[in-house]
């Protein structure tokens, strides 16, 4: 049976991981793409969160805003996840030993869960209240929680750089 550490080292020992680790340009390049895409994820989600909290874009129905913004959010998230995966496999063992990395992954899952709960449960009767400025409590909670989680994700991301030497 394949153990987790064998699975991890399969990727970490690959030629791709080796290139990212050794090439002076590749690591910062992928990191920059990661930063750009995370900024788009966080910034675009904030537009939705502030609307849910009743703090911005009050004259627009919630559904119109999510329709306009979420395609950008998801595209950016795909790029962030792909670039993050490339950075991860370059030093997988070290990342897995880093508490901030593990916290970051868990926080992203929590942000995803928050979104699933909102769209799946709280937003079931969206058309009834999406035009109002002050939204029901579950919607406001989802917006507030999302902001807190994404701030924590970015903070953990930055802290990884100070607690783990990859170069």
């Amino acid at each position, binding site marked *: 049976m394949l153990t987790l550490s064998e699975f991890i080292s399969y990727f970490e020992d690959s030629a791709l991981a080796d290139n990212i680790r050794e090439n002076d340009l590749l690591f910062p390049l992928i990191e920059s793409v990661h930063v750009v895409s995370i*900024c788009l994820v966080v*910034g675009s989600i904030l537009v939705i969160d502030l609307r849910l909290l009743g703090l911005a*874009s009050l004259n627009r129905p919630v559904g119109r805003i999510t329709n*306009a913004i979420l395609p950008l959010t998801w595209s950016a998230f795909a790029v962030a996840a792909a670039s993050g995966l490339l950075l991860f496999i370059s030093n997988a063992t070290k990342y897995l030993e880093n508490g901030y990395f593990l916290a970051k992954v868990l926080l992203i899952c929590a942000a995803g869960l928050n979104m699933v709960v909102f769209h799946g449960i709280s937003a079931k009767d969206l058309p009834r209240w999406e035009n109002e400025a002050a939204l029901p409590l579950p919607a406001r909670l989802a917006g507030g929680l999302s902001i807190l989680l994404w701030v924590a994700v970015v903070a953990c991301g930055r802290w990884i750089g100070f607690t783990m030497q990859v170069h």
Partner: protein
Amino acid sequence: MIGAGLSELCNWLAATPLSQTIRAAGWIIPTLQTIHILSVAVVFSSAILVDLRIWRLLERDVPLGEITRRFLPTIWPVLFILLTTGSLLIVGEPRRSLLNSTFYFKMALLAVAIVLTVALQRSTSSSPSFWDGTRIRRIAGRFAASVSILVWCGILFAGRWIAYTQAG
């Protein structure tokens, strides 16, 4: 000549009590960087959303003027937070930026981004559908939006690259 003066300035800055405080506690620099990145996320996304609207990729049913009024005014107070956290980071580690050509490249790109944003905000506040008007204006608008996207991405890339090109 300039290099020597800058190096002296860095030494002076690094010796100030503020600089020593910033460096002394391990959590201050990552905290400043986190606030800095979150602010970048707000400014960058605001600019990109407006650029994408100019390309008619989202909110096509809303006049451009309304989109710029919704997103661009946020940029200015957040830019102030960016300048503050950025300045504190420079005071904490002056050599990291002031003796680093990547930092000056980033500032030059920022100047271009600011000029573009002001021009866009002004043109759409006086006539909301200015860039949707004639064919020439549509093309010019899309050109400006593309330049804006490239310049903002350049700023973020340069920001990350400062860490890799800093003087010893």
